[in-house]
């Protein structure tokens, strides 16, 4: 039990996937302009990543390994995840329209995204068991949600600030992310997995 909690906490704060491993930056900067959108995006990424990580684990251990096809991991995972997200979008649209209204539009944005694709890959590389890989994916998703919500709140405050012309937009967003990353750096070394 303790092991799984450590893994979870480590992926949320210590090895935060956005701020220390730079995964999912495109959506991190693109969506964090508004707080509501960020919350929706955080939820979408967490759930999609958990499901696709479970699926990827099953495919890797029951299809790729028995047939010695590990060299195809990259190609198989990207097709698997892209098609899985499309399928998920269709199912949610048909059967859970309230959920679809909340974060359905973000699903297509994350169909081929670094973080959704990277986390299953990292899990496989680390030789995690099924449960470990699921917990790690949940942690990574929550970490992403935490980072994007913090960033969105900061950027909403930034609207009132007097930013030099050249820095406006992407420039100041990067520097802000740097400050946030600096704060998260304080957690490093607290937990080692």
């Amino acid at each position, binding site marked *: 039990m303790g092991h799984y909690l450590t893994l979870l906490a480590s992926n949320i704060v210590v090895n935060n996937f956005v*701020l*220390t*491993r*730079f*995964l*999912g*930056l*495109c959506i991190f*900067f693109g969506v964090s302009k508004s707080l509501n959108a960020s919350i929706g995006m955080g939820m979408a990424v967490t759930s999609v990543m958990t499901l696709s990580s479970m699926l990827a684990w099953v495919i890797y251990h029951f299809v790729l390994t028995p047939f010695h096809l590990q*060299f*195809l*991991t*990259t*190609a198989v995972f*990207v*097709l698997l995840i*892209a*098609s899985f997200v499309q399928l998920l979008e269709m199912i949610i649209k048909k059967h859970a329209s309230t959920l679809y209204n909340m974060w359905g539009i973000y699903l297509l944005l994350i169909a*081929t*995204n*670094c973080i959704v*694709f*990277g986390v299953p*890959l*990292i899990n496989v*590389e680390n030789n995690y068991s099924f449960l470990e890989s699921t917990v790690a994916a949940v942690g990574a998703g929550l970490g992403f949600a935490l980072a994007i919500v913090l960033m969105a709140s900061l950027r909403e405050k930034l609207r009132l600030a007097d930013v*030099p012309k*050249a*820095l406006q937009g*992407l*420039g*100041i*967003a*990067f*520097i*802000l*992310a*740097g*400050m946030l*990353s*600096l704060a998260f*750096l304080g957690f490093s070394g607290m937990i080692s997995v």
Partner: protein
Amino acid sequence: MRELWDIFKKGIIAENPIFVLALSLCPALAVTSSAINSLTMGLAVMFVITANNTVVSITRKIVNPKVRVPVYITSVATIVTVVQLVLQAYLPVLYKALGIYLALIVVFAIILARAEVFASKNKVTPSFFDGLGMGCGFLLALLSIGVIRELLGTGAIFGIKVLGSWYNPALIMILPPGAFILIGYMVAGFKMLTEHMEKVKLERGEI
């Protein structure tokens, strides 16, 4: 010839993938802690984007538009797998250093964007040069970030000591926050530069 040069050139400054389009930022931050990693990553991306543009352009009349995105993804994934296997065989140290980010080339927005925006509508030669130009712009951006970070963070470039013992390395530059902050300033600098260039052109009456 002139048109091809223009296609090649626009990827480097006017539509620089990192500083202007702000696409595919993950590698720009993750692998640039040293100049040699940036160079390898830049070359790998340049190869993938050029090869993929060529493939997409050759097959653009055969592929049904409805299934074009899966076709692009399959093509990119194949090319990336080739790059991975080659690097693993001949440059194992760099392969280890780049790690997961090499596989992540598959989902770089810039590659799919160029396939969709340019290669699917143009002939093979312009598509090739478009890929080459975009790849070059990407490589140069990555390399400049890598050189600055390594210089400030360790006082060396490509592992060779440049600054003397008087220089106290700012470790923060090779850690994640340094990457974010540096790119923030570089994006701003690039914006100022392009604005200035436009102003100059306007004064000369070229636009």
